């Protein structure tokens, strides 16, 4: 499926949001996920179905300082 992930167009095998996180190996990490500008609660990652062209932002929290 063609998606825009973190500003770049990407071809990802994905049905739900959780698949995208697994694709980028971000599952279980400190990530906040947005679809088209709306934060999706982690508890809904496996329920939210994806459609072509969605803009997904995976905000991976940065701990260093």
């Amino acid at each position, binding site marked *: 499926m063609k998606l825009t992930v973190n*500003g770049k167009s990407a071809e990802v095998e994905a049905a739900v949001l959780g698949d995208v996180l697994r694709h980028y190996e971000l599952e279980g990490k400190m990530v906040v996920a947005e679809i088209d500008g709306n934060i999706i609660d982690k508890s809904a990652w496996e329920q939210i179905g994806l459609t072509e062209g969605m803009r997904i932002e995976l905000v991976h929290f*940065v701990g260093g*300082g």
Partner: protein
Amino acid sequence: MRDEHHRFSRQQLFAPIGEGGQIKLSEASVLIVGMGALGTVLANHMVRAGVGNLRIVDRDFVEWSNLQRQMLYDEEDARHSLPKAIAAKHKLERIYSGCRIDAHVSDVTPGNIGELMDGVTLVLDGTDNFQTRYLLNDACFQKGIPFVYGGAVSSRGMSAPFLPGDTCCLRCLLPESAGDGDGQTCDMIGVISPIIDIVASFQVVEGLKILVGDLERVRRSLLSWEIWDYHTYEMKLPAPRPECPSCGRREFPALQEGGSDVAMMCGRDTVQIQGKRPLDLELWKLKLQDAGEVSANPYLLRVQLIEGERLVLFPDGRVLVQGTEDPIRAKTLYARYIGM
């Protein structure tokens, strides 16, 4: 005298600050936790801007690998292994003698956070771990003090202001259960200095707005940057969550925890053990002279052990065991030389 009088003139000409804002800055009391890369940039800006009272806290000492990005330190500081809080205080006082700088060589714990935040009007995040950030978040939301988060690693960084009674808190945005720290620390995957300056500078912008009272214009979003493979993103802060254990239910979990006496310093090949008693470094210098090669400055004592590891003792009772990531090995060495 006249020249001295003009040192803030360019900042006062900037209308949103003006003379009124400058007076507020001179009366402000800011706490910066962590005086590493972000912390040194934050402190430099705060002091140059004319903040009247600055409290800085850091548990570590200056090492050569810090000099690439920790802008207040120099080769002398690394050569003498000066504690960062002390080296930073020396440098900051030379920049602006009108700022009262209160330096603490210490860890920030549930036990001392209340005292460290006493009288503070703003907390800036210079820490390198989320455990301390959740502690700062909870203490700030309990006391109603604004907290400006920043983080940076590799070529990535992010920053967000959290205003009690207005925005959500860090826990609302990123619950503690969201995930683990994943070893992506500056010590594991590196960091380039421009991302530090970018993140800390954006923290300072919001900090200045808060200090001069221009709360309306505080940016209520999380900004994130990837500066090598360029991408930037602004995420609106969500509304406070009523079920949030910190700003919603007001339980402030990080303030309740007893806190462990053993902390891993992630990616540093170092385990920190917090002893219950203060350590008299003069006394320990004599006690440990047969344990290995001992070197000292007024703030810490280092022992290169015959076993290969290295102990670093601090007067506040902390001991760093360097050269191991195994807490059991660290406790064994601690028990052998310091005693449980």
